[in-house]
Each structure stands twice: as structure tokens, then as C-alpha cells.
């Protein structure tokens, strides 16, 4: 058995499910690369503080999942700081507005699809 902890990268790590996953994986012995959208830095800090309480190694960064260059820079920085992640929780998402389909604003629909689909695609690739 290797004593090197495996590394998991979690996007949307400041959200309810991202934080729960960070907590669970951290307690199971994973080192954690925690990332969030720049607007949710405070929530990301809370996740990092929670993971510190049970001694998990963490590395944090912020990026917008729709910015391919930003994602690549961050993954490179993660590899230098922690190592190569062997697990990815592709969790960042945007719920969008709540409106009937015929009244749904198309600019918001575009943003929802960009973040949830293109963002997941970019982080995955």
C-alpha cells in the first residue's frame, strides 16, 4: 500500500453537495483540490475550514468553468501543488431562473447551458 494520499478535484466545492463530498472524501483519506467560481470564494473558504478540522490536505483555487484557459491554468497549478488528481467530481452548476418555458429568458438559458454542459465538458477535457 502506498502512503501517498490520492487526490480528488471538486468543482463547485462551496455548494451544499460539493462541501458534503469534500467532507466525505477528506475523511476517507483523499487530498482535496477545491475549486469554485470567483464569486463564491467565501463559501469555498468554509469548505476548506471544514476539511481542515479533520486534517485533510487541501488546495483551493477559483475559476469560471466556462473559461477553458483558466481551467487549464488551475489544473496545472494543482498538479504542481498537490499532484495529478485521479478523481474528479464535476459538480459546478447554475440553477438559472425559474420561469415557464415560454417566458424563459434566452440569455439566462444560454448561461445555464454554458455553465452546466460546456463547463462540465471543459473540466472533463
Amino acid at each position: 500500500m502506498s502512503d501517498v494520499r490520492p487526490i480528488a478535484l471538486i468543482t463547485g466545492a462551496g455548494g451544499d453537495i460539493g462541501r458534503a463530498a469534500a467532507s466525505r472524501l477528506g475523511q476517507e483519506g483523499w487530498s482535496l483540490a477545491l475549486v469554485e467560481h470567483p464569486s463564491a470564494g467565501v463559501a469555498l473558504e468554509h469548505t476548506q475550514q471544514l476539511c481542515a478540522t479533520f486534517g485533510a490536505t487541501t488546495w483551493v483555487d477559483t475559476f469560471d468553468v466556462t473559461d477553458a484557459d483558466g481551467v487549464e491554468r488551475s489544473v496545472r497549478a494543482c498538479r504542481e501543488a498537490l499532484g495529478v488528481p485521479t478523481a474528479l467530481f464535476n459538480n459546478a452548476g447554475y440553477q438559472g431562473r425559474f420561469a415557464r418555458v415560454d417566458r424563459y429568458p434566452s440569455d439566462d438559458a444560454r448561461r445555464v447551458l454554458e455553465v452546466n454542459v460546456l463547463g462540465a465538458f471543459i473540466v472533463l477535457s
Partner: protein
Amino acid sequence: MVEAGVSGAVVCSASMAGVSGAPNMSAYSASKAAVIGLTRSAAKDLAPAGIRVNAVSPAFIGPGRMWDTQVAAQAAAPSPYYADDPAEVARQMIGMVPLGRAGFPDEVARVVAFLLSEEASYLTGINVEIAGGSV
């Protein structure tokens, strides 16, 4: 992972909205259905590299910010499916779940941890519905 030549696992966050369609959430439902398609396709593309790709689809998850936002937003948006009072919307949502409650965030996290672990070594391209029996 591919570039570094290491095997591993990916879990994508989909949603029951992408499986069943949620009222007032057409863009979100469409996007999460797409995430399930992306997961299934990527699972095939990355299997030769030893990378498993799966999805989780939570339904109503709470307590937390996500639950509060969703209840308030459904109450505020006109709909034949939900009342305009957030407390009543919360009751209506819970009423749709056979297990009779929302799922805890950790109940999603446990499935994610399982799918990322070696315990799930023969699972790829699947979508796990974490929905308390709701469809």
C-alpha cells in the same frame, strides 16, 4: 488524467430534473439531460484509458442553501404545480418523495465517494438517481 497517463474516475453532477423535467426549470432540465449524455459518451471515450465516468442525479436535497433557493423560487414563479407560499411548496415537494423527506447532502456525497472509489471498479457510464424513490 489522460495526459498524465493515470487511471481514475469522474463523477458528473446531473439531476433528476434532467431525467424527469422540472417545472419552471426548462434550461436547467435540458442542461442536466445533456450532462447525462456527456457522461455516457465520455465513459466510452475514456474507458480505454482506464478512466470511469458516471453521473449522480439528486432530487430534492436539503437542508441547505440549494433547498431554500429552490423552494423560494418555485413559490415566486407562477405554476399550476406549486403554491405561492414557500412553506407550502416545501410540503408539496416532500409529498412527491416516497421516502417522505429530502435527501441530505451527505447522502449524495456517499454515492459520489463510492463511484470515485475502487469499490465501483466495474461501473462506468451510469447515472445514479438519488431521489428517495421519486421519478
